[in-house]
């Protein structure tokens, strides 16, 4: 009955030639999908959490104001305002808004968003001052930057 002999087949090694392609695809995916942080963060910002989150689709319309204690302890621990790459005073905000607005195309100048990245332990005093200045500069669309969480019941 030894008619049906089990055939022994040699398993060929799996070709790994396409592995680099796969990894490159992964790499390109991440490169395209991630948004590069364009400016250095000079203040420490721990963002608060919120459930009613809005996501801005057109990223080029956003300008950032960071408020928080300086990363570099030599500048103290009191919250400071960072505009672009430098510390700023509340009084400079109006000029900053005007300048930033000019960097946008004319048709989009009214659509500018100001994203406020504020450390959660900051007192409202400085935030209120900044908001008042934004109002005076007619930059009324504001996003309070926050991490998303579930709604509480």
């Amino acid at each position, binding site marked *: 009955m030894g008619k049906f002999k089990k055939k022994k087949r040699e398993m060929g090694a799996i070709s*790994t*030639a396409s*592995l*680099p392609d796969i*990894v*490159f695809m*992964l*790499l390109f995916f*991440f*490169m395209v999908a*991630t*948004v*590069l*942080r364009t400016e250095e963060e000079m203040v420490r910002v721990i*963002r*608060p959490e*919120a*459930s*009613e*989150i*809005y*996501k*801005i689709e057109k*990223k080029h319309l*956003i300008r950032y104001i960071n408020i928080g204690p300086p990363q570099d302890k030599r500048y103290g621990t009191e919250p400071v305002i960072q505009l672009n790459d430098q510390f700023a005073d509340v009084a400079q905000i109006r000029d900053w808004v005007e300048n930033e607005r000019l960097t946008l195309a004319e048709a989009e100048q009214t659509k500018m968003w100001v*994203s*406020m990245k*504020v*450390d*959660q*332990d*900051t*007192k*409202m*005093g400085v*935030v*209120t001052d900044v*908001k*008042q200045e*934004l*109002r*005076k500069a*007619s*930059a*009324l*669309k*504001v*996003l*309070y*930057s*926050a*991490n*998303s969480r579930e*709604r*509480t019941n």
Partner: protein
Amino acid sequence: MARRELQEINAGSMADIAFLLLIFWLVTTTIDSDEGVKRQLPPPVPPDMEQQEVKDGDVYNVRTNFRDELLVEKEVLSIDQLKDGAKDFLIATGTGLLHPERPNVTLGDDNMKYPERQWVRKAELIALEQSYLAAGQEKAAERIREKLTAIELFGSDYRELPGSALISLQTDRSTSYDLYLQVQNELEAAVNELRDELSLAKFNESYASLEERYSRTKEESLLDKIKAIRLVYPQRISEAEPRDASQGYY
């Protein structure tokens, strides 16, 4: 001349190189997410503008102090209670749709007074629209037409909040930003939950999904639904002009 056979380069390490690149990229990039709570600031107030008188019951007062405590309608609340309180205020005396009419409590000063919701009736609107059109007030007529579409979509008349009803938020300069944002968030959650509830009942779709679909497709019929729901539950969160609150406390 000796002819040398070109040898194939071994590509086995290519994957390793690519992996190195990938890991380098992952480590060095910081993902910067642009999401948060959206707010429209009010335009600057001209100095000569006079203060408007509003009815006591029409304003839902929320105040925060330097110890991160909440004072809502003269009562100390915790942050988890705020949303329900705000919802209660927004429903007011009943929308005429999902929430039946309820009496306005006016016993004593301690009871919360609600703003009086007014009936929006189809027959009255049609007459009003005609009179606006006759007077050539196209914009006013347009607003009436929006209410008419809303009635058509809901299938019945509804009651609207008076124009002066709003949620007023006043923050002390020493309140923490975290609490401020939580308050903003809870107030917005209150409006959104009410809108979702109404939208699910009438259009079988949540309000959030209506908005999301409209932003993609720009369909007119979706916009009508969104506007209808906004008419019933407008989002009116006003931030009081900042003042030195230290005067008011002691």
